[in-house]
């Protein structure tokens, strides 16, 4: 549960993030704004995973699949819009009010289909199956030669277009990402505190008892799975716009692992944690090599993962409370 310290932290964090582009500019490094936009986008994906993982107890190892679907919807429609060809008889478009909801909706639909299958099982089966289906979608996008296959697809038309808003401006795009993150965060906070959320948390703690209280748990789990899929789809939509490039790499199985790590690193079952986790993970990824470089440890600079892997193991073994737990919880009330 949120502690009294958490709210001021969130407000301060929001103010900081609103001010960030100016700070970055003042510091003479506007590139940071783009780095943080990426953190915000992955925070959305991580929060969506936390919803099913931390609150619903569903260990999905295929969450990047929905990220990929959202991203590819944007890129493929942009591709057709750019070269004027038709897709299923319809023209492509870069118009965000059409494309973005489509990306989110398609992710949700795929999550509905795959979730309906995966949720027939539980435990370790669920892990393996979500992983396998994500891999299936990975191969699917690899095989789409028209859209670049393995090599991916550049969005030559640039970012999506929006009335009154120029997304091609990096600062503007940053604020759009921030707005979506804030909105999604508030939405998820509401969800976990709602009747639905209590049911979800009940299922995590004691699924059998939930059945005996009269809850059709499968339906509730599936609904949560779809919401999470849609959230990841939203992140994917933003991610494609961020890099103006998509490739099957977005839904590579290691990306699913990365999102999972963000959740754990930040603090599972907290919603605030995944934001911290996304920041910590992406900053480590970007700056571990730099740090090793500065320490003139050249071997580690190129092979920073050799440090990152064992770090992860140690975190799992010894620091399960995550950053959230370190910041907001005392040792004693660890749940």
């Amino acid at each position, binding site marked *: 549960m949120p502690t009294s310290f958490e709210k001021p932290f969130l407000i301060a964090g929001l103010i900081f993030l609103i001010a960030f582009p100016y700070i970055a500019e003042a510091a003479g490094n506007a590139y940071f704004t783009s780095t943080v936009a990426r953190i915000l986008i992955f925070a959305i994906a991580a929060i969506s995973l936390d919803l099913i993982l931390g609150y619903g107890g569903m*260990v999905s190892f295929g969450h990047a699949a929905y990220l990929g679907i959202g991203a590819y919807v944007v890129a493929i429609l942009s591709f057709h819009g750019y070269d004027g060809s038709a897709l299923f008889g319809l023209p492509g478009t870069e118009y965000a009010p059409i494309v973005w909801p489509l990306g989110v909706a398609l992710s949700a639909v795929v999550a509905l289909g795959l979730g309906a299958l995966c949720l027939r099982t539980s435990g370790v089966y669920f892990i393996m*199956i979500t992983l396998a*289906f994500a891999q299936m979608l990975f191969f*699917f996008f690899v095989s789409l030669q028209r859209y670049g296959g393995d090599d991916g697809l550049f969005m030559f038309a640039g970012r999506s277009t929006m009335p009154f808003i120029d997304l091609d401006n990096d600062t503007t795009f940053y604020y759009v990402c921030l707005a979506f993150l804030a909105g999604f965060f508030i939405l998820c906070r509401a969800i976990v505190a709602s009747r639905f959320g209590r049911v979800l948390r009940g299922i995590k703690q004691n699924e059998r008892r939930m059945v005996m209280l009269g809850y059709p748990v499968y339906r509730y789990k599936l609904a949560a799975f779809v919401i999470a899929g849609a959230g990841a789809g939203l992140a994917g939509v933003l991610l494609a716009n961020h890099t103006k490039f998509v490739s099957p790499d977005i839904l590579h199985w290691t990306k699913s692992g990365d999102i999972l790590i963000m959740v*754990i690193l930040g603090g599972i079952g907290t919603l605030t944690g995944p934001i911290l986790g996304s920041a910590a993970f992406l900053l480590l990824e970007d700056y571990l090599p730099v740090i090793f470089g500065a320490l003139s440890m050249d071997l580690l600079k190129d092979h920073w993962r050799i440090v990152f892997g*064992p*770090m*992860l*193991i140690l975190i*799992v073994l010894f620091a399960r409370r995550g950053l959230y737990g370190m910041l907001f919880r005392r040792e004693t009330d660890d749940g």
Partner: protein
Amino acid sequence: MLLFVEQLLNGLQLGIFLFLVAAGLTLIFGIMGLINLAHGSLFMIGAYVAATVTGWTGSFTIGLLSALPAAAIAGVIIEFVVMRRLYDRDHLDQVLATFGLILFINEAVTMIWGRTPLFLNVPDALKGTIEIIPGVPYPIYRVAIIAAGILVALILWLIITRTRAGMLIRAGSTNREMVAALGVDIALLYTALFAAGAVFAGFAGAMAGPLVSVQVGMGEQILILAFVVIVIGGIGSVRGALVGSLLVGIVDTLGRAFVPDILKLFLAPAEADGIGGGLSSMMVYLLMALVLVIRPSGLFPTAAAAR
């Protein structure tokens, strides 16, 4: 017809690799309750060691024989340093920690061998083709793999059904507590089993060396297919792993070979190639989906699945 038989044999051979990986994975889960993402890394280590030693000595036999202890040693180290701490943890912890292990191992392999793939030639003695089925010339090396795979499966079957260790494994995969109650040295049993699983995976990796390029990431490719195998076969069941492996191997190979052609019966060739490429690589996953609909706990369910 000729092509079909050839592809069927290729499928069988892929199935054998899968079985060697999946058998260890499924037993480790059945007995220790551990999901180990890094199992594919042992496959990769087998391939790298075989390729390297073969390069030094010029003898594939020596390369293959050194891959086995290398994989076993790697397996024991992994078990000793990391896995032991994970047996009592939940699946999420196991997945994350073994994911971290993959990052580490892959990076270590890159540091040692670099990023360029290694290539390993088919040993001279096994070059050429043979007509095991009249009219179907088939590479001798692949025949050797199939034969070796059948031999290993047979040995495994004998161990499991005829020895005391096998009895413990069978008992353990359905009832872990019971084995503990028998007063067996569980820690030793686990380490031994882990080493055995590593040897099978390493053996498969070494054998695969001449057929694929030896590179980082090869372990995870086969790992995910092995997961599909286990889901289809039923977790903890060696028989399920065998049936699942052959099914997946054959469906995957035949799918890649024939799905685009079959689609050409209905679609324009260009379109058929496009869709066919995607569909054929998705075939095994569709097979898995089908099994899930019909039998959610696999073709050969065991009690281990309940965990």
